[in-house]
């Protein structure tokens, strides 16, 4: 059950410099090729832990993060937001080492995938428990405000995860305190195998905003410029002190929940329909049509990006696992600093 609603007005009266448009494309291609490289690793039997594709979600993770100020705002990404890490300037090798939990990972092997935190890059990863980091993101932004700084916290949740009680508590709290929080609800039609109509019965997940007294909007999540513009509006609202926003992005999860899942429960036609709206292909075509780039440049960019990804993964995967002694460290931070 695809609940499709478009709102392209925003993009029509708004224009973006060519360099920025190219950058958006580049980031989306990075996100896309990251998946391709991880899939290769999975097929080689070298991946350890879940491999969560963001195929179809590139415009959301890139467009939302791009609206932030990387030096002042803060990103709390979820499991299908690798594009956001790239936008926030995460170094490829650092990302891979963290992701694959090898020696040198910021998590020292205690965890892997996108769960790492890199305070210098203003990235705080998720935990597996869906929704658990939304109150944390709210508290982070609140702390900045207490010091008179402005920091917008941007985070994500799925169409399934949005049903977790903590999401409600966090949104309500953020609305009451007018915390500069932007929650992107990535409605990709499925939560693992569960279709949206078994997750919620409302028309739009952004309608939850009404019940919190915050702004809410549902948009096509395959249009990166629309995503960017919508998020910029939400970020501006947050910065003005007008409180949080829910942005529901409509996309399709184009692969299984993780690579072990053959997603045979998804009707083929649904995938075919959404394939026509591929966010990366479409944006590339648009930039070519607009004369911002050429088919050749795009192809070249893809090839080098994929090569970079594979090289970084191969470097990371060849690193040793962290030393066993790391398992016994840091249960507590020992220094008393206050």
């Amino acid at each position, binding site marked *: 059950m695809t609940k499709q609603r478009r709102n392209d007005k925003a993009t029509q009266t708004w224009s973006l410099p060519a360099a920025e448009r190219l950058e958006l494309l580049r980031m989306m291609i990075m996100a896309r090729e990251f998946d391709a490289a991880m899939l290769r690793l999975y097929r080689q039997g070298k991946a*350890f*832990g879940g491999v969560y594709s963001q195929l179809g979600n590139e415009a959301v993770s890139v467009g939302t993060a791009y609206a932030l100020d990387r030096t002042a705002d803060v990103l709390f990404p979820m499991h299908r937001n690798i594009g956001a890490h790239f936008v926030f300037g995460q170094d490829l090798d650092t990302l891979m080492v963290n992701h694959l*939990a*090898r020696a040198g990972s910021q*998590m*020292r*092997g*205690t*965890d*892997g*995938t996108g*769960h790492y935190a890199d305070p210098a890059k203003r990235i705080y990863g998720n*935990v*597996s*428990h*869906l929704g658990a980091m939304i109150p944390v993101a709210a508290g982070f932004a609140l702390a900045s405000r207490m010091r008179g700084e402005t920091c917008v916290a941007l985070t994500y949740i799925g169409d*399934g*995860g949005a*049903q*977790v*009680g*903590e999401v409600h508590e966090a949104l309500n709290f953020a609305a009451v305190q007018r915390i500069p929080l932007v929650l992107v609800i990535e409605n990709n039609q499925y*939560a*693992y*195998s*569960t279709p949206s109509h*078994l*997750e*919620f019965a409302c028309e739009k997940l952004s309608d939850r905003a009404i019940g919190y007294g915050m702004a809410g909007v549902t948009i096509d999540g395959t249009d990166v410029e629309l995503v960017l513009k919508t998020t910029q509006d939400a970020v501006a609202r947050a910065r003005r002190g007008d409180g949080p926003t829910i942005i529901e992005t409509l996309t399709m999860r184009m692969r299984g929940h993780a690579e072990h899942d053959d997603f045979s*429960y998804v009707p083929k036609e649904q995938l075919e329909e959404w394939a026509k709206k591929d966010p990366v292909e479409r944006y590339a075509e648009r930039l070519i049509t607009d004369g911002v780039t050429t088919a050749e440049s795009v192809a070249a960019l893809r090839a080098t990006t994929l090569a970079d990804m594979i090289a970084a993964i191969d470097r990371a995967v060849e690193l040793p*696992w*962290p*030393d*066993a*002694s*790391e*398992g*016994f460290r840091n*249960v507590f931070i020992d220094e008393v600093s206050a």
Partner: protein
Amino acid sequence: MIMTYLEAIADAMRQEMRRDPSVFMIGEDIGTYGGAFKLTKGFLDEFGPGRIMDAPISEAAIIGAAIGASLNGMRPIAEMQFIDFITNGFNQLVTVAGTTAYRWGLPVPMVVRGPSGGGVGGNPFHSRDPENWFVHATGLKVVCPAFPADAKGLMTASIRDNNPVIFFEHKGLYRKIKEDVPEGEYVVPLGQANVVRPGKHVSVICYGSAVHMALAAADTLSADGVDVEVVDIRTLVPFDEETVLASVRKTGRAVVAHEAVLTGGFGGEIVARITEKAFRYLDAPVVRVAAFDSPTPFAPTLEAAVLPNAEKLGQAIRNVVAF
């Protein structure tokens, strides 16, 4: 019939659902998908969406709905996709389910079940062994089977019990071990420990994955002439103190083992009961083997280091025997 631990659990649930129309299941991705571990594969086809309910990602609603249904004549089985997510439904289980019989004198026949435990690269959020939280909550029965046949028999007993039961399925055991499992109706009553290996020199009191560590350690030690008795307690609540004490009184030495982190775990409870009630029989201190007090790490090097295993347990047994 030869079955895996996973098949044995499914078998028990399938049989109880066929037998009793008040039994139904609720959980995430248990229907079309057949569960994250494919444990409920085929259930939707057989029982239909009315009895195999795919729920939203809402552990509190899942457990709460199960409580409500159980107060209204049903016998729900609520699946946590991973038992770790019980932290999101903790209040329902502990505050509501665990106190209802005491307050209202009404039965709350329901089972909350799901995969627990580490050793499979699950990360800190897919590996917990939190059974002692529920032991210490009052009003909840706590079951931790180690073998396929027990898993079937205890699941059957849990579904038929009139109290809320939390049933820990060690995910590392799901497909690792097979054994002959009685066909048809098979009940292992809650509250009966099982001496899975008789021995003379030392008792290992354990449950879940630690039973397999104990059996492996016992095999190794037997080559050195150390005869280890392994007591699988099977259910933490109710706890079969008599079988445990009888074993320790016989051997005079005990090692307590579980995969859960050491501090504050159920191992302390077992040691305390042995110390209080079999003190005169003890020839050596009772020693515990358990996980290091940390979250369960992701990288295999770290995970192997913090979790207990047959070697660490074997060494502890040797020390106790040598005391």
